[in-house]
């Protein structure tokens, strides 16, 4: 639905369907229910489908919107649209509060907290009779002037649904939507390429609540009577099933799932009393056999197109300057009694390729994790381009010019190669981000694979996409954690050339690597760690013959004869 003309046409079709099509009252009610539910389900597309967070309170937000309209119009005397705005915003506000308190914790916390919120809301709606009219519910909810006739109101609902579906669908390819999917696919990697993951999760949850409220508000007008039992935990579950059945990762899927599950109970009347049980079974079966839902299954069958601009040359905007770009003094990271990094000093000069080596378990990756903000250091100082950055959050470090890759590649596996790199380029903004991403992908030689889903790429290409993603963030300092691991000989040679070309761009490299041929070939300086401490530092020739280094790698002094 990229085409605005197409969108207008669709909107017009909605209106015509509502106004002109010869529908009986019963069918109109059914369609109203499907449309208003679908709007709320689109909220789940954002929070669960795009962002990967489980919310089990969508019916609660739906209820807040519905009560906002009901009480706002009957009690406060607001106009319908003012009441709708009130209900929607109220739902969004609760979303922010709930998300803000929970989303820093692990995934299951949100599930539990949303269930709890759902239960509390049901209790409040039932028992706070003074405000909500209690179990009797609210009747005689007005519809907006001019849209009182059922077909007209249905047209409104369909129009709002259409606009919402269009917006949610478009969001998926926008920077915010990409950031959400990055959080879902790999939260850690998202943070080091500059995504403020906590903020993105809160926005996703709030948007989801907002859509829940919007759907609920329209629902109140549609049925003109609401009561607390319409917004219970069971209804949250129904909404969740709708999203999962249709395919939670796409707006289209949510609409399909909702339509099916609103209409199915009518078609499956013989199941009447068992139909919720069948929903439950369906959820399990979908998870086992068709985790992407109906639409996900269908969409997986056709290839993805990407709009990648023609790649230009990659220019890194942060000239290296002079002197030490990175200056680490006395860096320490302890895990309980284990001193993984124990007072490491490290000085990386601007424009150089600096290798960090040492036997397994010597603290190299931990050092990198501290430098990129994934671990908070126990002690010591880290200065990047003269600024103290020890303990800063990963996305802030990314903004300050730090890029990194991971030993076990961390791509956003369900996104295309280009989208992966594009997420890394977001700091550049707008069209420039796309150009930078295209240039970075071209730089690693993968412009022709831009539309391939990351998980489907061969291993060597995945490594290159990860490097391109880091480059797209315009880093002054690039941390590479064992880039040669798992590469075959040809790929290793290509990597060596790539690192030389990177040096030509003016980016400073800090490299962890076990392949000593590669280290010798590219490194200007080497720092050697053992037991979390620095044991040597200097040029490759000096360091690799340093007796302590030889001992650390081969054991004791070289040249010892065997009996």
């Amino acid at each position: 639905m990229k085409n605005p003309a197409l969108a207008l046409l669709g909107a017009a079709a909605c209106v015509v369907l509502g106004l002109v099509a010869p529908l009986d009252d019963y069918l109109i009610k059914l369609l109203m229910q499907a449309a208003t539910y679908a709007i709320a389900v689109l909220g789940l597309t954002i929070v669960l489908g795009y962002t990967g967070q489980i919310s089990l309170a969508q019916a609660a937000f739906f209820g807040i919107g519905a009560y906002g309209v009901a009480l706002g119009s009957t009690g406060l005397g607001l106009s319908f649209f003012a009441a709708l705005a009130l209900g929607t915003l109220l739902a969004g506000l609760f979303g922010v509060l709930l998300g803000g308190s929970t989303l820093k914790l692990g995934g299951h916390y949100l599930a539990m907290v949303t269930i709890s919120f759902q239960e509390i809301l049901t209790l409040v709606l039932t028992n706070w009779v003074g405000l909500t009219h209690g179990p009797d519910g609210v009747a005689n909810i007005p519809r907006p002037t001019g849209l009182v006739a059922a077909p007209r109101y249905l047209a409104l609902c369909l129009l709002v649904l259409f606009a919402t579906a269009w917006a949610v669908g478009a969001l998926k390819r926008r920077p915010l939507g990409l950031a959400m999917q990055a959080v879902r696919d790999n939260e850690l990697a998202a943070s080091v390429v500059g995504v403020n993951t906590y903020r993105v999760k809160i926005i996703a949850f709030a948007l989801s609540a907002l859509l829940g409220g919007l759907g609920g508000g329209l629902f109140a007008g549609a049925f003109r009577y609401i009561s607390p039992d319409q917004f219970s935990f069971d209804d949250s579950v129904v909404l969740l099933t709708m999203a999962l059945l249709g395919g939670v990762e796409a707006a289209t899927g949510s609409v399909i799932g909702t339509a099916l599950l609103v209409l199915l109970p009518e078609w499956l009347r013989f199941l009447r009393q068992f139909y919720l049980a069948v929903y439950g079974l369906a959820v399990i079966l979908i998870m086992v056999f068709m985790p992407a839902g109906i639409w996900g299954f269908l969409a997986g069958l056709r290839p993805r197109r990407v709009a990648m601009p023609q790649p230009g040359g990659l220019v890194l905007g942060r000239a290296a300057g002079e002197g030490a770009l990175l200056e680490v003094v006395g860096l320490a990271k302890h895990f309980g009694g284990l001193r993984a990094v124990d007072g490491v000093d490290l000085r990386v000069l601007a424009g150089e390729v600096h290798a960090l080596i040492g036997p397994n378990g010597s603290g190299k990756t931990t050092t990198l994790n501290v430098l990129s903000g994934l671990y908070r250091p126990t002690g010591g100082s880290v200065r990047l381009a003269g600024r103290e950055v020890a303990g800063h959050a990963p996305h802030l470090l990314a903004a300050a010019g730090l890029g990194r890759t991971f030993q076990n590649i961390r791509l956003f596996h369900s996104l295309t190669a280009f989208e992966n790199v594009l997420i890394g380029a977001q700091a550049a903004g707008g069209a420039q981000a796309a150009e930078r991403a295209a240039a970075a992908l071209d730089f690693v030689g993968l412009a022709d694979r831009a539309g391939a889903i990351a998980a489907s790429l061969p291993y060597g290409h995945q490594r290159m996409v990860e490097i391109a993603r880091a480059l797209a963030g315009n880093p002054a300092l690039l941390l590479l954690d064992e880039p040669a691991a798992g590469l075959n000989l040809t790929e290793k040679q290509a990597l060596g050339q790539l690192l030389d070309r990177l040096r030509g761009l003016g980016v400073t490299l800090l490299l962890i690597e076990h392949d000593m041929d590669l280290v010798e070939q590219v490194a200007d300086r080497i720092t050697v760690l053992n037991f979390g401490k620095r044991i040597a530092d200097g040029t490759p020739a000096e360091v690799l013959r340093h007796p302590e280094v030889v001992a650390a790698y081969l054991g004791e002094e070289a040249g010892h004869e065997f009996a």
Partner: protein
Amino acid sequence: MSLLELREVDAAYGAVQALRGVSLSVARGEIVALLGANGAGKSTTLRAISGLLRPAGGTILFDGQPIGGLHPERVVRLGIAHVPEGRRVFPGLSVRENILLGASNRRASRAEMAQDASAMFALFPDLVRFADAPGWTLSGGQQQMLALARGLMAKPTLLLLDEPSLGLAPLIVQQVFRIIRQIRETGTTVLLVEQNARVALSIADRGYVLETGRLAVSGAPAELWNNEEVRAAYLGGRVAKAG
């Protein structure tokens, strides 16, 4: 006949080919060292033998029987104990409990197990005073001792040891390797993966060197130690030639 024989074994982690046609053999009563730089495929070889990783191709024979692709629980019952990299001591269980669980592969009475556990405490006297302390409180060296003791409780015919020297101070490394030598003297065959070539070759009868998933060289310890290719695998080509 070899106790253990690998013929043209391939293995992969997802898209990453980790072993390409590795063939090696271990005779009864030997200590064989498997050397190579990080990422060369040493640990993967052990994981393929003990069943943690299903080989993509090739044959693994133990005592003449094919064991490739068997579940680890079955493999250890056949008499192959794998002491993995990083010791993997159960942090929440006491030292004694960790040791007792080592016998999970065989049917032993309580009395028998208690007796075998005492034998382990005799072999590793340093562990006695921590018998009731939880695993996570031990130092790296003590954890390595515990991991060895737990592995020996299986009464293995073949012991697979992955990087027993990892992160240990030189004195402790010597102590660990003294014990490995003792273990062999009791008739247990040992396949030893080490990054520390010096110490591994000092106790091994034979050695193999892996390079990016392939066997590069094999031979007697002294041969390997003076072999330039071996040094290059660790420290890079130019240094080895210059040195």
